[in-house]
């Protein structure tokens, strides 16, 4: 991952996180505010509903008291036979807008019933349970009707004349008609659960149009109020279909739970508002993120451009172009870094030139020393031989021929030696370019090792080969690679003057090969390892110091790599990798 990409990623994360936090905080705050407002609205509407409910109660009480205050009821109270009045209740109930009306005698027997005319004579003993019904106002009561039990809002008034009493029980059924007459604002609805059975009954949960179609979601709320009669608020559903229900327990005159009134407020408007806010937030956030990305892109480009140039320049320096410089466009830390880089490359160039100069002088000195050393050895026999021949001619002419013949042979041998020395130097100077072809390194190793068998025997060296059968042909110059392997083998034999074990391995490396030559000699110090491939450097008392330099030259010409692994007393392993 590039520095610019990383920087861009950091900027992006920062922008997205910032926008997200702002959006979340803003949205959350707004939602809380609206939910608070919605809760206040629901509470206000519930209060309005309760007021309407109380008004209905007062209306019922007023009507019942109005009936009780009529002369007809006084006359009925005084009547000795109630039979002619058995159908008085229906017209009176209709006249007073009451759905339920019963005229009950002092002994609790029904004189006339509007809701169930056939019940005349039946007892309403509950009326005898208390005296001050008027103070109770309207209350809820289970009411039996011909088609079943229902819930009613009733009030009781009494008419007393002498020792006679008449009860007037009037009210309205709490049914869907009752709910339909309630004035509710848009988005609200009133449901009524009539607690007429021991367990929750879906049929008893009604709204203004009849039984509620989907009552199952409301069952837990109703059951919780039934278990613990108190006002409860709960949101039911999700999304735009969610509703907040305020459940009011409806108690009878004995404080028994007879019903649960559910005032539902749709959360559709709130959800739509939240959706709108969310959409707006997403658009703003997306715009912010896009803008942030563009700015981050521009900023990172601006910031990373000099760094990238520095990196490119450093790459060029690494590739050997030490004259590379960086344009200095600012005076900040990046500019100071560029200045330092330019100064560094400038110093590197100067140091390299000085080093080259020094190494060149050293090389020439080493070459001169080696040449002097190599040439001095053959020259000394030449000088002795010539002086012997001169001395024999002057002092011993009869032996001159003999001396001359032997001297000539010595001279020729030493001249051949000189020629050989000069040839090796010449060969190193004139390393040809490799002629690449497919080479079976396992065969190459076997053939080379075979050539050295006599020398191994003389040097008491045990030769071993570990050849990788998976190794295929590798592109290389067989002559040069043979020459490099010979040099390494000779080097190993020289490293084991008292004998040892020489091991040559081939290891397949994908399309290439690793060639290892190990000995069990005395090993090399780290300093010796560092200088091992320097031309004309040798740790031996004989040799030109060109062997390993030639090996390195061959490997280098093959775009390969050579390394040495050695520790004093543990032998040495040369490792060539091609391919």
């Amino acid at each position: 991952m590039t520095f610019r990409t990383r920087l861009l990623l950091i900027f992006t994360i920062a922008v997205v996180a910032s926008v997200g936090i702002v959006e979340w905080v803003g949205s959350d705050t707004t939602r809380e505010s609206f939910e608070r407002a919605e809760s206040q609205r629901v509470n206000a509407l519930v209060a309005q509903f309760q007021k309407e409910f109380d008004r209905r109660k007062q209306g019922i009480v007023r009507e019942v008291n109005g009936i009780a205050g009529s002369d007809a009821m006084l006359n009925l109270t005084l009547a000795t036979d109630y039979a002619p009045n058995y159908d008085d209740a229906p017209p009176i109930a209709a006249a007073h807008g009451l759905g339920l009306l019963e005229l009950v005698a002092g002994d609790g027997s029904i004189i006339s019933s509007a809701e169930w005319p056939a019940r005349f004579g039946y007892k309403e003993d509950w009326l005898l349970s208390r005296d001050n019904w008027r103070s109770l106002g309207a209350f809820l009561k289970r009411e039996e009707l011909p088609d079943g039990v229902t819930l009613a809002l009733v009030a009781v008034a009494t008419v007393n004349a002498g020792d006679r009493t008449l009860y007037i029980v009037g009210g309205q059924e709490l049914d869907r008609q009752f709910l339909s007459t309630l004035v509710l604002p848009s988005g609200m609805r009133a449901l009524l659960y009539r607690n007429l059975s021991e367990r929750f009954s879906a049929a008893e949960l009604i709204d203004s149009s009849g039984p509620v179609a989907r009552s199952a979601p409301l069952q837990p709320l109703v059951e919780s109020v039934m278990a613990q009669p108190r006002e409860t608020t709960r949101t039911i559903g999700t999304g735009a279909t969610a509703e907040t229900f305020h459940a009011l327990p409806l108690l009878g005159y004995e404080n028994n739970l007879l019903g649960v009134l559910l005032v539902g407020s749709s959360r559709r408007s709130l959800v739509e508002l939240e959706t709108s806010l969310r959409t707006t937030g997403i658009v703003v956030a997306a715009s912010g993120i896009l803008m942030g990305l563009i700015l981050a892109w521009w900023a990172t480009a601006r910031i990373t451009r000099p760094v990238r140039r520095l990196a490119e320049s450093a790459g060029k320096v690494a590739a050997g172009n030490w004259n590379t410089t960086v344009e200095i466009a600012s005076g900040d830390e990046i500019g100071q870094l560029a200045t330092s880089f330019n100064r560094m490359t400038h110093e590197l160039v100067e140091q390299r030139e000085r080093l080259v100069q020094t190494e060149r002088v050293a090389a020439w000195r080493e070459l001169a020393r080696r040449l002097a050393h190599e040439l001095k050895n053959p020259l000394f026999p030449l000088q002795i031989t010539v002086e012997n021949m001169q001395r024999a001619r002057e002092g011993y002419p009869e032996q001159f021929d003999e001396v001359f013949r032997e001297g000539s042979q010595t001279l020729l041998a030493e001249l051949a030696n000189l020629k050989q020395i000069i040839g090796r130097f010449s060969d190193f100077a004139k390393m040809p370019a490799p002629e690449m072809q497919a080479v079976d390194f396992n065969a190459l190793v076997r053939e080379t090792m075979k050539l050295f068998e006599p020398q191994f025997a003389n040097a008491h060296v045990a030769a071993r080969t570990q050849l990788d059968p998976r190794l295929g042909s590798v592109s290389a110059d067989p002559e040069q690679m043979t020459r490099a392997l010979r040099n390494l083998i000779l080097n190993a034999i020289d490293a084991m003057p008292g004998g040892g074990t020489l091991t040559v391995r081939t290891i397949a490396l994908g399309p290439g090969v690793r060639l290892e030559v190990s000995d069990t000699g005395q090993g090399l110090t780290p300093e010796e390892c560092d200088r091992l491939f320097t031309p004309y450097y040798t740790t031996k008392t004989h040799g030109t110091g060109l062997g390993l330099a030639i090996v390195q030259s061959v490997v280098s010409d093959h775009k390969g790599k050579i390394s040495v692994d050695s520790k004093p007393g543990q032998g040495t392993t040369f490792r060539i990798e091609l391919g």
Partner: protein
Amino acid sequence: MTAWKNSRGADFRLRRTSVRRCGSGTKTPCPEGRLLKPCAALLLVLCAVATGLAETRPHYGGTLRVEVQESIEAPDPPQTGPGIADLFNAFAITRWESGRRAVFAADDNAAGGRPYIDTVDVEMGRPPREQAIALDTGKADIVQIEPADLRRQPPGRKIWSSSPVRLVALVFSGYQEPRIREALALAVDRAAIYRVLLQGQGDISGALLPQWLSGYAFLFSAAGDLPRARALAASAPPAARVLTLSVDNPSLRSIADRIVLNAHDAGLAVSIVPSGASVRLVQTRVISADPNRALPAIAAALGLPEPPRADTPEALYNAERGLLEGFRAIPLFHLPDVYAVSPRVKGGPGITPLGEWRFENLWLEGGRQ
């Protein structure tokens, strides 16, 4: 409109006052013993009295407007039975609108003599409330009322009432569980219905024939026994405890509602349905003052088997008891026919103890209108 001739024979002709025809074509009633003799001495004294008496003297003319609750849906007017069919004694039908209206004209050749009233206009299917209003406003002269409404009539109103000739009973049709039939018979609180819904009119009865006709009706128990009814219902299979009840006559609906309530108290689930019910609340009537003829007629009307011929009261009692065995029919009440009559109708009562119409002897105050 269709013109009808009286098809009845001389057997149904009643004794009638003589009629003297006047030259003008108007008919002046001249009942025996009621002719004023010209007496100069008393003429002035009795002048004012004579004017008043003239109002009570029968005279011809006028249209008698009758409203009944029953609606006869038939292409032709009924020729037998009480009510409209009785008019054929002295009237001839001139207009028949099935289920709505029947108009009769006085028959000049009636066996008992021409009726005083020119026309009888009968409107059928009139609700009780509208009948009461029509009577109060003078748009009707005779209206049929329910016994329960009798005590609601204003003081002084003329009421014609027959003997209790209408039998109200529960009749099972094809219901096979005798325990439930008996349970329902014992569950019905006849006394409460009689006292409140019937306002004490008619008779509580456990018999098919009324007491006044048979003389032994009191031997059939009409008492309820709710505990035994509950026990009987509980002993029956649950499915048998579910009944449906239909009411033939809308005026009996309140009685049916009370029966449903009584049945509920006994553990029976009874619901009222328009038709096809397992038990029906029906009303039939005694058509003859001869119990030997009345009982088979009632049995036939209720769908009961024809009773054997009874020559003695004991045999008749046994025959009736045999009909009521198994509670396939549960007699409840015997009710009278009751009519409220306008004060302008004179010469009544216009019905017999059996509830037959006898309008030929009536005349209207004010005469021809």
